[in-house]
């Protein structure tokens, strides 16, 4: 479980995060939802420690993280897996080496144990035959899968995904969403996903936090989100014609 309390961050004159608090539970896919520029990615980076918040705290399973000593931070970071928006695979390494990398750096496994784990993780994300390919040789969807395999390779406790569907077609997006959901439930991982994709919300949003201009405006489940009376959230959801039509159908059928 990850708890954040009163996270505030300002860049220059712009207040990007304004007192965001919340709890992200283990075994659930927690979504940070909002339009572009609302501070979702900054909040995610504050949680993992890539950006230091001006005010506020983050705790991982009760262990204080934000301003803690380096060794405590290191200990927590070794339990974190992260899927970046552009996958952030190491260009100079093969798929196999990318997945092996955290095992090589963070564990005492020998080569054969590492390769077993690499093959298991690649199989888990459906990439059995891509071991020797370079990142430049695989598609965007495959890169995301490799990114997930790399994130889960060292048995992470916390999984962070920064817009896992960006640049993917709807079908591949759905597969990536399903994969993240399966992995979260299978390994009881605390997963936080930054997204502005309503399909992801409907498909995998166990718990959703809606951000607007750096503030948390709404929190709830995917079953509650379509019935919210928060104006900004409604504008965000129903900016999409498909969602508006779906709402009309639902309203008509309930009358």
């Amino acid at each position, binding site marked *: 479980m990850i708890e954040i309390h009163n996270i505030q961050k300002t860049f220059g004159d712009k207040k990007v995060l304004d007192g965001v608090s919340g709890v992200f539970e283990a075994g659930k896919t927690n979504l940070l939802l909002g339009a572009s520029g609302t501070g979702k990615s900054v909040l995610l980076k504050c949680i993992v*420690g890539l950006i230091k918040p001006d005010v506020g705290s983050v705790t991982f399973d009760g262990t204080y993280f934000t301003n803690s000593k380096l060794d405590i*931070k290191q200990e927590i*970071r070794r339990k*974190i897996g992260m899927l*970046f928006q552009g996958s952030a695979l190491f*260009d100079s390494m093969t798929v196999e080496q990318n997945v092996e990398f*955290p095992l*090589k*750096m*963070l564990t005492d496994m020998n080569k054969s144990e590492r390769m077993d784990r690499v093959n298991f993780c690649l199989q888990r994300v459906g990439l059995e035959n891509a071991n020797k390919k370079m990142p430049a040789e695989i598609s965007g969807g495959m890169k995301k899968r490799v990114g997930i395999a790399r994130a889960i390779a060292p048995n992470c406790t916390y999984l962070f995904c920064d817009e896992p569907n960006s640049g993917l077609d709807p079908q591949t997006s759905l597969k990536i969403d399903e994969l993240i959901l399966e992995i979260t439930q299978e390994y009881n991982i605390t997963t936080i996903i930054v997204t502005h994709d309503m399909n992801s919300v409907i498909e995998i949003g166990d718990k959703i936090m809606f951000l607007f201009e750096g503030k948390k405006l709404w929190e709830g489940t995917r079953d509650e989100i379509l019935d919210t009376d928060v104006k900004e959230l409604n504008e965000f959801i129903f900016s999409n014609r498909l969602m508006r039509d779906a709402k009309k159908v639902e309203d008509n059928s309930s009358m």
Partner: protein
Amino acid sequence: MLQQFGKYILFMSSLFFRGESPRILFNRTIDEAILIGINSIVIVAIVSTFIGAVTCVQVSYNLTSALIPRSTIGFMVREMTILELAPTITSIVLAGKVGSSIAGGLGTMQITEQVDALEVMGINSASYLVLPKVIASLFVFPMLVIIAMFLSIAGGYVAGTLSGEITAVQYITGIRGDFVPYNILFALIKSVVFAFLISSISSFRGYYTSGGALEVGAASTSAVTTSVIAVLIADFILAQVLL
């Protein structure tokens, strides 16, 4: 500028905290040494051979007095090569080749979040990525400078003898006369200092790249220009202090 210098000092000190295990550092250093060394040998060989050849021809052109023995040409080629041309010109060439490659590589890693990926794993990205490049440069640059010295003197020999400016015996007599071994040490000290400046400045420029492809290009350009200026300033200071 003072702020940038302070940032550079902090960056360099960060290389030594939370470092990786000696085994990983050793392996990474060997990889970098191969990249920096092997990939630079051809350009260093071409540049140094022609520099030696041109030096020989131009010295010969300027030595018109019959009172000065022709072997002086060989002596001057050797002295200029060892004291200045091999370490400094080789370093300037390497600032262009290695410096831009380091800055471009790190800059690309930065903008594609590969550096963030390392940090999230709890790895000191500066130490992991930069320290091996700096250590590898400290070992490889002097080797390249020694190769450059040899080829430059050989280039002078070939150019001088083929053009008929000097005989083989005169040239060899010249390069063997009044040899001061300390000059070799001086050249190697210079190459180590230049290696540190080029690798660290280029890494600093690349590591702090933000934005997109345009900024990566700007970081590479800045790395080369800053490194070359630093090399020339250090060249003057070292000559004043050590000679």
